[in-house]
């Protein structure tokens, strides 16, 4: 927050500043509150006091005047009383004496017709005396009033017959005369003067018509104006008694005015004191209060920074010394000051510094140890490296040896495989031979027997051929040839199978075909055989499976699997179902499953079932090569894979997965 004067009020203040502000604000607020309280109590009280004082002053003035007037009245009255019985000359002298006493500027003795019989004037007014003598004052309103009312009358504004100036007159009728006394014009001023000395307050006396009669401390304009409007509707207390208070303007300033009326002359007496802030007492009070306020604020502004400084300097010292700590200079003590909390903080700081120092030396020690350890470690590290190098060299060496050994091993393996192959080939050949041996042997035997029979027959013939002998011969020939045929067929089959095993891979035909068609072909060829059995073959081949592969081998695979199921799976069974299902697989492959619900593959054979010469019917017609051929064809020719699942007593499922596009054949190697 930006303040005028370039100050910025951020959230953070210097301690000194906030202390100063606190002190100043506290002082100002305190004094402000006190000042307000004092003023609120004192000012109205002072004003009320002054107003009451003014009122009593006015009343006193009125009384004073009335007393003076009473005095004058008394004198003139006494004179009137006396004059009745005195000789004229003496009466005149008395009149003169009265005037000489002061108070009256002229006393007239008027006859019944208003003529001046005698006028007593102050000394030195000889001309006037002469000219007034015998004057007709019948039209004088005071004379008329006295004559008419036949009692003492005071006038309030009376025009002096002597001077023409306005003054106060008193007329006292007695006998046939009227004593008319003109009061000296400065009488009123004198009355006020003697009654209200030593004050600077405006004092004003006005007559019944509101015209100025006398006054003190008045501005010209107040003297010259008419006050009747201001004095309208005065409460009755104004007359005699207690007076009244009103706010009137004197010299343009509102004054609390004490007002009293004199009954005798119907004059109004006003004594005023400035009202409100113009009142000197109020002013003084306000001035004192504000002076005190300013002084306190000044004092606060002067003292506060000093005090704040004193409070915050130990803190500053502490901050400096703490800062020294942060740069690593320990050892100094922090100066204490008058604030306990700061001293406690200083003690804690020193303790902390001590602790830090100790910690530092500990650290240095540790550092030393650490360095040592580091050295050691480096040393060890070096050694380790050397060792590692050595080991690596050894390992490399070993590796080399191992590689050599590996090579040797590989070679051995290849040899092994070759020899294995040779062995298997050998065993195959052996097996083939063994297999062929039986049927060919049998055939040879049968034919040789036949040969023998023929020989014997010849003999028979020679002796004379009997029908029985001929029949017997034919029988024997038939039997013999059946046996020979059967065995030769068997040998043919075997050779055909053997031929299949050694598949001539380069002469196999590759083309595009629909899988469904090939499967149907196979099933067709199988139909004659199937017709004779109680078993069923079902095929579910989706229509659009197009392959670019070797249909012959694929058909062979299928044939072999089916044959397996028929001959092995359904052995001893009177019913059976073979399902052939093809489903397209991802990556452009197709899965072909051949499932039978036969007796299953014995677990003992499961691992070796794709090996050559593995059969459950060895010697009983199975060559043991069927699945091997299948496996070989699927993997090598069709580029796929084969697997099976079998559960004894429940059936077997062979799963063949081959790509739709068979891989290009590599030359057999």
């Amino acid at each position: 927050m930006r303040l005028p004067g370039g100050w910025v009020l951020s959230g953070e203040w210097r301690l000194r500043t906030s202390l100063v502000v606190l002190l100043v604000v506290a002082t100002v607020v305190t004094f402000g509150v006190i000042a307000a309280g004092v003023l609120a109590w004192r000012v109205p009280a002072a004003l009320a006091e002054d107003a009451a004082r003014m009122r009593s002053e006015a009343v006193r003035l009125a009384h004073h005047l009335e007393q003076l007037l009473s005095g004058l009245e008394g004198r003139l009255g006494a004179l009137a009383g006396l004059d009745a019985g005195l000789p004229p000359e003496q009466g005149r002298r008395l009149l003169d004496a009265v005037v000489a006493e002061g108070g009256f500027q002229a006393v007239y003795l008027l006859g019944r017709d208003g003529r001046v019989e005698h006028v007593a004037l102050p000394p030195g007014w000889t001309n006037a005396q002469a000219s007034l003598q015998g004057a007709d004052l019948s039209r004088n309103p005071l004379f008329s009033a006295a004559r008419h009312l036949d009692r003492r009358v005071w006038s309030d504004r009376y025009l002096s017959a002597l001077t023409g100036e306005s003054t106060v007159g008193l007329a006292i009728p007695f006998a046939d005369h009227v004593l008319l006394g003109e009061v000296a014009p400065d009488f009123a001023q004198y009355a006020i003067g003697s009654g209200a000395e030593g004050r600077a307050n405006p004092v004003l006396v006005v007559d019944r018509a509101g015209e100025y009669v006398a006054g003190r401390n008045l501005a010209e304009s107040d003297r010259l104006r008419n006050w009747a409007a201001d004095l309208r509707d005065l409460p009755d207390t104004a007359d005699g008694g207690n007076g009244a208070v009103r706010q009137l303007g004197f010299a343009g300033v509102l004054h609390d005015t004490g007002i009293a009326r004199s009954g005798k002359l119907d004059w109004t007496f006003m004594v005023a004191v400035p009202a409100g802030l113009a009142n000197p007492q109020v002013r003084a009070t306000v001035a004192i209060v504000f002076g005190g306020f300013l002084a306190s604020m000044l004092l606060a502004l002067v003292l506060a920074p000093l005090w704040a400084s004193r409070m915050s300097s130990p803190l500053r010292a502490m901050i400096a010394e703490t800062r020294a700590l942060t740069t690593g200079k320990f050892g100094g003590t922090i100066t204490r000051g008058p604030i306990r909390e700061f001293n406690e903080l200083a003690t804690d700081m020193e303790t902390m510094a001590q602790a830090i120092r100790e910690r530092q030396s500990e650290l240095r020690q540790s550092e030393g140890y650490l360095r040592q350890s580091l050295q050691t470690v480096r040393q060890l590290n070096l050694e380790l490296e050397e060792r590692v190098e050595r080991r690596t060299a050894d390992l490399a060496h070993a590796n080399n040896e191992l590689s050599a050994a590996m090579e040797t091993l590989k070679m051995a393996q290849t040899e092994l495989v070759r020899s294995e192959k040779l062995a298997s080939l050998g065993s195959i050949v052996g097996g083939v031979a063994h297999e062929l041996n039986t049927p060919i042997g049998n055939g040879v035997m049968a034919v040789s027997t036949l040969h023998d029979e023929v020989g014997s027959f010849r003999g028979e013939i020679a002796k004379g051929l009997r029908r029985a002998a001929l029949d017997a011969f034919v029988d024997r020939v038939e039997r013999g040839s059946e046996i020979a045929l059967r065995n030769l067929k068997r040998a043919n089959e075997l050779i055909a199978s053997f031929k299949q095993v050694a598949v001539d891979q380069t002469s196999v035909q590759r083309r595009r075909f629909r899988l469904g068609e090939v499967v149907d072909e196979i099933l067709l060829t199988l139909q004659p055989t199937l017709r004779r059995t109680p078993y069923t073959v079902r095929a579910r081949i989706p229509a659009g499976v197009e392959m670019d592969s070797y249909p012959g081998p694929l058909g062979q695979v299928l044939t072999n699997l089916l044959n397996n199921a028929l001959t092995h799976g359904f052995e001893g069974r009177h019913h059976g179902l073979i399902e052939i299902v093809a489903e397209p697989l991802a990556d452009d492959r197709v899965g072909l499953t051949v499932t039978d619900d036969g007796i299953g593959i014995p677990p003992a054979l499961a691992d070796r079932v794709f090996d050559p010469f593995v059969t459950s019917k060895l010697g009983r017609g199975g060559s043991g090569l069927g699945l091997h051929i299948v496996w070989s064809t699927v993997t090598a020719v069709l580029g796929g894979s084969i697997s099976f699942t079998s559960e004894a007593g429940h059936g077997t499922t062979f799963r063949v997965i081959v790509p739709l596009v068979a891989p290009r054949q590599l030359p057999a190697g």
Partner: protein
Amino acid sequence: MVRAAFLVLLLAALAACSPREPLRIGFIGGLSGRVADLGEAGRNGAQIAVEEFNQAGGINGLPVELVVRDDGQNPEKAIAAVNDLVAMRVAAIVGPMTSAMADVVLPIAQRSGVVLVSPTVTARKFFGLDDNLFLVMSSTREEAALSADFHYRHNGTRRVAAIHDLRNRSYTESWLEDFTVAFQALGGDVVPVAYESSPDADVQGIVRRALDSRPDAVLLITSAVDAARFAQNIRAQEPALLLFASQWATTERLIELGGKAVEGMVLHNYFDQASTAEGLQRLRRAYGERFQREPGFAGVAAYDATRAVLEAAARRTGNESLRDALQKRGPFAGAEGDMTFDSSGDSRRVPHITVVQDGRFVVLH
């Protein structure tokens, strides 16, 4: 600190708090001394006029303020008073009430451009001049001529002793001269008797001087107080001698102080006390209520003068000066009738011939 200064300022402002500045009209007249009756009546008449005007809304809703100053029939006091009024920036001054004071006051008013509208100045020398002085009554010449004619023809007066007050020389000498010229032109004779007015003047001596010339009538160009005194003294010796006076003496004081001695005195009065003019009746009523006496010619004239000033101030447009307004924007309604000022700021209003009958001024028709 700033707060303290602000508070001090606030105090000062409170102490000196004053309302909006109203239009100010000054009044200058003798409010003390022997001719105080004139000044007082003038002030009272002006006061009534201002109060009436304010009650009717003032000028543009603002009240008019009457600032009163006393010249005490004293030149120094008069100069101080008029300077004071000028300093207060009054729009115009009603007054002065006597030609003697006009002598003193006019140059200052002229210099500072303030308009003087005098209810009662009638000395001839002030007429026909294109100056800041506006006059409500006719000059002494008209009055004196009227007087000379009246007395010569109606009363057969042939010799007049003229007692005149040198203290108000401008007026009295003007009046005397005008009367003498007129009376002599008719064939009469005037014996001047000069004197200086003072409380202890040798009235008897002056009267003796006047009567020594065996006049048919005595002319009193004096104040009411002096006229009363002279009347008393003359009557003591010559009960039947005709007495007449200028308008200056036509105040209630004359009757108060003169008693029976002034019965039958012929005077001049600005207005007809018996007039039924509504404005006059209203004025006499208000004046009587307020001040408990009759306004007299000075009161009525001052009322008329003030009314003219106020109406001119209300009627002027734009930057028109008050002086121009007074000259051009008449006629202005007075108590008894309308009045206008000519290009010299003079009026033509000849006081009626009046006689004292039973203690009252009665206009002779």
